[in-house]
């Protein structure tokens, strides 16, 4: 890819301003406990329709980067991770802040986030086109197997309940079947409602599951009194500290990028594994949990590295690498784009804009994260009584805005209630979103494969790439039970 010569794509006021604004909004939203970058993109998605597709997608990617970093600010200062990927940062970040080293912790978080983010972008720039070239050889059977592999990875998103994640993914697949079946014209689950004939719009479901359900969750909580740690100035890690953490940052960036590439796995898993590996290899493992600076560097570099990693399958294959990239794929749909290998041939400008947007976002949040951490931490103290009604206003306007239909507002509200109850019983909204995004691909590629194979489904097993994906699917579904069985045997 002629990477350097395309920098002019973001060097105009509108694109640059959008990336700058989105990154700052991302950091702000990431810093707010309960609000995630996925939710922010979902809420802003309908309004990106007014932008050029390049600008809209680059802005979403920048928001994703900013939001992932933003979570660390409140994790360190008030022990309330702004977003799940920053949960591991709080383990050592908050104890450091309590010891009066908030500035040092924030400094390390910002620097390691940027290192992780940029390293993963380099992998993205090198690896995504290669993956896309391989994907050129994919036909419908390969895409079907890949989508099934993506869904099976839901089993390993969270260690709590793989089965619940799979059920969530299937619920998403069901939602994607609602509407008139394209090939046969048969109405499915429309119950005579004309507005459902074209299917359920992705955006209101997204807003409902992410934002509306969170409003109801927050309504059930009592007012939290968060104590903000005082700090005078942000102090960057010294060269010696940076040197001592360099190995950890590099290792965690590698872990984050790799986990990000895996379909469905995102920043939270990366950060947890990055943190655990840092503790395992550290000379100061006893200090972990008590304010060890490596304990901040590891999850922050891992969760930011996961952003670049997650964009690789998203752009090259059209398979989301994380919940937030599933929302970004929704953005592709809204702008009439289809992520996948042909994107590299047909829309190179879009890809360059995304790469540069993410690169720029990393530098922006380094500067603003360091200079504005004090202000950002104050944002988290906005009373809930003002914050969540404002979020609802965005839910209302966002779900109505795209199709200008009240039915979408009702769908948003219903999705919110369903999401609230599912979350109460340990289901996460992320697998449902993944299911909805992959639904069309699963059904269409299966239908096309059946035609190609002349209705003999055993022909799937004659295709080597399909076999590889099926083997990976088997591993992702049964790795843990097999491992447990072996452990029991020992």
């Amino acid at each position, binding site marked *: 890819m002629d990477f350097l010569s395309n920098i002019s794509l973001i060097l105009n006021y509108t694109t640059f301003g959008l990336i700058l604004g989105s990154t700052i909004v991302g950091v702000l939203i990431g810093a707010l406990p309960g609000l995630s970058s996925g939710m922010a993109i979902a809420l802003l998605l309908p*309004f990106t329709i*007014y932008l050029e597709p390049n600008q809209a997608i680059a802005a979403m990617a920048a928001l994703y980067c900013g939001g992932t970093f933003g979570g660390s600010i409140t994790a360190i200062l008030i022990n309330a991770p702004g977003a799940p990927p920053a949960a591991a940062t709080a383990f050592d970040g908050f104890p450091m802040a309590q010891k009066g080293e908030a500035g040092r912790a924030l400094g390390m978080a910002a620097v390691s986030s940027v290192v992780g983010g940029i390293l993963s972008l380099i992998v993205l720039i090198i690896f995504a086109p290669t993956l896309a070239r391989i994907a050129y050889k994919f036909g419908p059977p390969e895409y079907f197997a890949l989508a099934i592999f993506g869904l099976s990875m839901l089993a390993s998103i969270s260690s709590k*309940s793989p*089965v*619940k994640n*799979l*059920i969530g993914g*299937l*619920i998403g*697949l*069901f939602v994607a*079947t609602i509407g008139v*079946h394209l*090939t*046969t014209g*048969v*109405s*499915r*689950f429309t119950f005579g409602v004309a507005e459902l004939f074209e299917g359920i719009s992705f955006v209101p479901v997204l807003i409902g599951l992410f934002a509306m359900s969170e*409003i*109801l969750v927050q*309504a*059930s*909580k*009592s*007012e939290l009194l968060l104590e903000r740690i005082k700090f005078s100035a942000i102090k960057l890690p010294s060269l010696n500290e940076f040197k001592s953490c360099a190995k950890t940052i590099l290792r965690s960036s590698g872990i984050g990028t790799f986990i990000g590439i895996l379909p469905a796995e995102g920043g939270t898993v990366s950060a947890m594994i990055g943190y655990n590996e840092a503790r395992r290899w550290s000379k100061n493992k006893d200090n972990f949990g008590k304010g060890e600076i490596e304990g901040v560097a590891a999850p922050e570099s891992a969760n930011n590295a996961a952003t670049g990693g997650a964009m690789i399958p998203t752009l090259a294959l059209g398979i989301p690498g994380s919940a937030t990239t599933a929302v970004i794929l929704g953005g592709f749909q809204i702008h009439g784009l289809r992520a996948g290998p042909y994107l590299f041939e047909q829309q190179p400008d879009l890809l360059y804009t995304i790469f540069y947007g993410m690169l720029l976002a990393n530098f922006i949040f380094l500067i603003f994260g360091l200079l504005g951490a004090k202000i950002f931490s104050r944002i988290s103290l906005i*009373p*809930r*009584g*003002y914050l*969540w*009604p*404002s979020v*609802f*206003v965005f839910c*209302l*306007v966002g779900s*109505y*805005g795209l199709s*200008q239909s*009240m039915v979408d*507002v*009702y769908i948003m*509200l219903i999705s919110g*209630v369903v999401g*609230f*109850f*599912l979350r*109460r*019983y*340990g*289901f996460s909204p992320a697998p449902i979103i993944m299911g909805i995004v992959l639904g069309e691909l*699963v*059904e269409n590629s*299966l*239908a096309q494969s*059946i*035609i190609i194979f002349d*209705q003999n489904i055993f022909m799937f097993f004659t295709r080597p790439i399909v076999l590889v994906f099926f083997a990976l699917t088997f591993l992702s579904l049964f790795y843990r039970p097999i491992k447990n069985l072996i452990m029991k045997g020992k």
Partner: protein
Amino acid sequence: MIKDIKILSVIIIISVALFAYTFTFDEVPEILAQGMQPTMMPRLIFSLIIFLSIFQLIQNKKLKAETKELIRRNAFVTFGYTLFIVLIADKLGFFISIFLYTLLMPILWQRKDYVKIFLYSSVITLFVFVFFTLVLQLKFPQGILEDFIIRNFY
């Protein structure tokens, strides 16, 4: 009680009902369906959901249900008021509905700084009107303010 029995039972019942509902779909001639009837995918999905839910119940059979914290009254009040606002938004108009929502919701969430609430509510409503309607040209239901808005702003 077995862990998650309530939610998994609800999921199973709904899946069985929707599976049964697929039998009401129109049959399509084989030449048109090309090997995949429109009922195939939903049936496959519901079968898997039912299978996985039962599997989860079997896995949980030795685990006792955790006592869940009761849903607070505030969640019901929030949902009720939100539903009310959504239902009247079409008739009353988005701007008045947003004003009413942002005016009363902070009070329902135990805020008592009434002047600030009024200011907050006015600023949010004004922001939505200026940014979304005047700048982005989004046309929301304007309800009883329709004449006033059309006369003065279009």
